[in-house]
């Protein structure tokens, strides 16, 4: 008979945090983009660009941290293609976002050809001295690499910035009603371009986490849909930063838990668990599609709508 005690819950929690970090980073970035009223479906493309750029730079410089910074820059750079097309040239956001994903997948495959089979420099776990030796908490909280902490910090700062600062309120105003924000004299286009670049940087970092820490190797198409999960996550979280964190750990947790249960010999409905993030998101979307539901889920009012400055 399978034995539940062979699954160590502490290791499980620690590994779900690692599994969730890529979608958490990409999700929190996309949340800011959508809070500014822009729907960027190119998360997958920005992630994979970050994955290959971070990997290539880390290998070339021998330093994983330089690689991660490079991934942020690369993600932000490709997102600016989207920004220029949708904010300056007024292209359709949905189509441009999808095109960005395809561009990222193809472009990264091209860039990554020289890096297939290369071993990246190791990203060390941070040392917290005696803290890491505390039972239970030490393993869960003080045994990770830097990006796990960075991702948590980004969530906290995003929450603080969106809710407690003037800049954050301007961004939300732009996302809720761009006509009013414009009438008040806010630079709608500039705010949105900056938000898109932030989203790109976060997605790039999430991708680099996959190629430098999670797997670690470069393989064509290695994000394998993580960008779509991150998009789903934002809807699931109904545009609240802390819920993105909860959602990411929930989605990551389901994945890690079901794999561990299987490895321990339990019979579980894998086929349903594998699609659960998508099912949950479809459910949220259904609720959202009714107008009352949309308001109660607090979707930004101008989400996905093009903005023409009228004079």
């Amino acid at each position, binding site marked *: 008979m399978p034995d539940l005690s062979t699954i160590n819950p502490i290791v499980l929690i620690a590994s779900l945090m690692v599994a969730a970090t890529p979608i958490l980073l990409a999700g929190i970035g996309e949340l800011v983009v959508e809070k500014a009223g822009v729907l960027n479906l190119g998360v997958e493309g920005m992630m994979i660009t970050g994955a290959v750029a971070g990997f290539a730079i880390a290998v070339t410089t021998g330093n994983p941290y330089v690689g991660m910074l490079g991934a942020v820059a690369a993600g932000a750079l490709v997102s600016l293609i989207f920004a220029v097309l949708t904010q300056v040239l007024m292209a359709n956001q949905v189509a441009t976002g999808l095109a960005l994903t395809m561009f990222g997948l193809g472009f990264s495959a091209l860039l990554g050809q020289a890096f297939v089979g290369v071993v990246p420099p190791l990203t060390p776990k941070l040392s917290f001295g005696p803290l890491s030796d505390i039972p239970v908490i030490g393993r869960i909280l003080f045994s990770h690499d830097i990006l796990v902490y960075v991702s948590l910090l980004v969530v906290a700062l995003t929450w603080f910035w969106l809710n407690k600062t003037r800049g954050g309120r301007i961004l939300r105003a732009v996302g809720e009603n761009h006509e009013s924000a414009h009438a008040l004299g806010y630079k709608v286009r500039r705010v949105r371009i900056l938000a898109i670049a932030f989203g790109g940087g976060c997605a790039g970092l999430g991708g680099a986490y996959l190629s430098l820490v*999670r*797997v670690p190797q470069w393989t064509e198409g290695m994000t394998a849909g993580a960008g779509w999960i991150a998009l789903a996550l934002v809807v699931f979280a109904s545009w609240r930063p802390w819920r993105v964190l909860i959602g990411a750990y929930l989605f990551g947790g389901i994945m890690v838990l079901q794999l561990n249960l299987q490895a321990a010999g339990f019979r579980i409905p894998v086929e349903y668990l594998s699609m659960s993030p998508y099912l949950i998101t479809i459910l949220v979307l259904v609720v959202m599609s009714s107008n009352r539901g949309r308001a109660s889920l607090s979707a930004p009012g101008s989400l996905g709508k093009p903005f023409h400055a009228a004079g």
Partner: protein
Amino acid sequence: MKRRTLLASSAMALGLAATVGTGARASGNTPLKVGFIYIGPPGDFGWTYAHDQGRLAAQEYFGDSVETSFVENVPEGPDAERIMTQMALSGADMIFATSFGYGPSINAVAQRFPNIAFEHATGYLQEAPNVSLYNARFYEGRAVIGHIAGRMTQTNVVGYIASFPIPEVIRGINSAYLHARAANPDVDFRVVWVYTWFDPAQEAAAAEALIEQGADMIMQHTDSTAALTVAQQRGVSAFGQASDMSQFAPEAHLTAIIDNWAPYYIKRIQERLDGTWAAGNSWNGIAQDEVTFAPFNPRIPADVQAEATAMIESIRTGAYHPFTGPINRQDGTAWLAAGEVAGDDVLGGLNFYVEGLAGEIPS
């Protein structure tokens, strides 16, 4: 080539028809156009990589008389049907579709284009006279790595990353288990179904979960090299899938089952050129060099290497079949009597575990 791939996959995902092939060449005869449909990217170093190696070998063998092209990352379902139709319309003479789930699509397209030769890897549906099936006896390879794993495991736990519960995968698990247990009666298999052919993060997480459960041998029926990388990091052993993956895990990689499609592709394209092509059902293995092995890691003890080599040779000569009775089903009922060999029809639809394997096959 890369740019064309990029364009093709972009067009595909956009929901437009993917255009394949570059038109006839100026020099005299029109080359035979052969299209390939891939489920993943040729850079996966696994399943699709192996097919692409076969395509490249065929291209080199035939030179100017054949023109090959491919579309990568084609999802199973309506997308596959659309892309095959487009290939057919743009003048393909022969189409190789290299994933199990393309079955319904390939048969639908084949009925509309009776003059095109269709070849479906690992399939079972043959609803048109121009659909041919081909597969390789990977279970022969899995018998060999099962033996190595059984002989080398210290913890007596072998971890197995499985993709989808289809006969191809179940056959592999059964074959590996039977031969691991024959080498080591205490061996225990842990099977994790990941429900994907290619997702490096998921495969890495599965490998980690298995190692947490004590596995010191990792086998996979998925296409990426992620599990190998994890095995290398965690200091356990693993087996490559579809191609030599040793560069990703020099110590961990014990050997790999290599899918060598080149002989089949060259033979079938030649038949198409000669006009002798006819639909068939090919299932070659070690004997035809369609299943080969990566060089053994020196970490495999000499006696185990010798045993593995002997097993390979006895399969090659036909003296030994990996599914030779007595073998019981998981529920204890008899499947094969002593000395009885499983027929291809039974193996082709294998949907149960053999006795000793724990857990259930997901439905």
